[in-house]
């Protein structure tokens, strides 16, 4: 059966049962911040959020990740590989935009000759349970980026909030397997499915923000030297809010740590930081905010499209919400799309 239902009151019991098999990550509310955290006895999943402050990418791509540890001996070095995966994992309550970001990240991390095992292994081992978006925010523009508030891409199961119940839609085989383990889940009634369909349509219509990325990609080809960049970057502070909170952005730095246990780690890095491309010689190919801003926009709407066939943005609106100076990516894309270029 493709459709099941679960009463909201029974969800905690279901999560508790799943916890014996999976390491579960779910939105957790701490003061004003909702972010994905490992569920333990000390916290509980919070599904009343609009969208989480931090995206779920950190489940697969944590801010600091140990690549390996090593010991330096008298005359020798010994490397101890850190296994990427320890347990079966589950991410629960992922909004459709964020789930779509997994699809983009999958493409990126498996691209080319060398695969990024740290991401891919965790991803392979993880069941994604999505949560449809009945009330998109005013900053959401997922529908402009091949997604939607009830989108299923990147998920194994999709939960849809139909008042007192969640309608469970199975998306993949893995999702189906999972559902089978809980025979007590009731089959959905026709009315439930119809109700969800109605909510889905309402939600779709509620995404008012539109961004025209289609022609932007092609246009950016001819806009590398456009004076527009001189204008739009001016107010950018060069902080990492937009990139760190972006569900897709995944640039990183690799460092050796000075702790007693020696580690090589990778940490999030941002193309907006001034030292990101600074070379040892002192030369910096992206010396000012202009080039860095251009890199971010180009990467999302042109370079990634060329390499992977779609934009590197899912329209979650986090960068719009959180930018300290209200530099709105929707306006930037808008300015590009209406720009006259030869």
């Amino acid at each position: 059966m493709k459709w099941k239902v679960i009463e909201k009151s029974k969800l905690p019991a279901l999560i508790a049962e799943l916890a014996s098999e999976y390491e579960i990550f779910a939105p957790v509310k701490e003061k004003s911040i909702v972010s994905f955290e490992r569920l333990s006895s000390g916290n509980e999943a919070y599904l009343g959020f609009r969208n989480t402050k931090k995206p779920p990418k950190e489940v697969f791509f944590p801010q600091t990740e140990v690549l390996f540890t090593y010991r330096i001996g008298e005359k020798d070095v010994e490397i101890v590989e850190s296994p990427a995966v320890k347990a079966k994992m589950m991410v629960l309550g992922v909004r459709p935009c964020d789930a779509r970001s997994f699809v983009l990240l999958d493409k990126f991390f498996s691209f080319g000759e060398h695969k990024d095992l740290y991401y891919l292994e965790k991803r392979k081992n993880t069941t994604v349970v999505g949560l449809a978006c009945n009330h998109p925010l005013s900053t959401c523009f997922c529908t402009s980026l091949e997604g939607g508030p009830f989108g299923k891409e990147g998920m194994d199961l999709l939960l849809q909030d139909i008042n007192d119940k969640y309608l469970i839609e199975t998306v993949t085989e893995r999702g189906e397997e999972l559902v089978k383990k809980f025979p007590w889940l009731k089959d959905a009634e026709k009315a439930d499915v119809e109700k969800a369909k109605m909510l889905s349509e309402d939600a779709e219509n509620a995404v008012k923000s539109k961004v025209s990325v289609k022609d932007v990609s092609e246009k950016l080809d001819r806009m590398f030297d456009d004076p527009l960049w001189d204008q739009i970057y001016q107010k950018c502070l060069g902080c990492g809010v937009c990139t760190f909170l972006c569900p897709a952005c995944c640039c990183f730095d690799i460092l050796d740590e000075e702790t007693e246990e020696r580690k090589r780690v990778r940490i999030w890095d941002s193309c907006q930081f001034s030292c990101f491309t600074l070379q040892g010689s002192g030369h910096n190919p992206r010396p000012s905010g202009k080039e860095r801003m251009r890199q971010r926009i180009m990467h999302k709407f042109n370079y990634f499209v060329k390499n992977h066939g779609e934009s590197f943005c899912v329209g979650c609106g986090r960068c719009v919400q959180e930018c300290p100076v209200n530099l709105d990516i929707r306006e930037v894309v808008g300015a590009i799309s209406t720009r006259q270029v030869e």
Partner: protein
Amino acid sequence: MIKVKTAEKEWNPKILAFLCNWCSYAGADLAGISRMQYPPNIRVVRVPCSGRVNPYFIIKALQRGWDAVLVSGCHPGDCHYISGNLVARRRFAVLKDLLEYLGIEPGRVNFSWVSAAEGEKFANVVKDVVQKVKALGPTKRLVKGVVPYGKP
């Protein structure tokens, strides 16, 4: 690379001391040649002036797991470079206040003025610092790698 072991059988604090070349280092020397007894817990870094001690040095030492830091220089007015210690004094005041405000135990960061003639004072300063640090126990706050990386 300086390696600091924090966990030993009988715990003995490791204290990093920055001593100004002109006064405190000579003071420590005097304590030594006068056969004054003081605990062997300090490791000395000789610096040209207490003004040379960048607050980073102090913070870095705490991060690397030193149980305490002692900075010692010339008495005000005696600085070989006229005012290095006076500039340092303000800096240390702010740093110490700030660290303590964050909850770093007061005994972890120590300052003293010890002249070349004050061998006894030097021995007493060290005794005092060691005693305080022993009461505090091994350092944990600000030591890197003690707390695992952020969530998840």
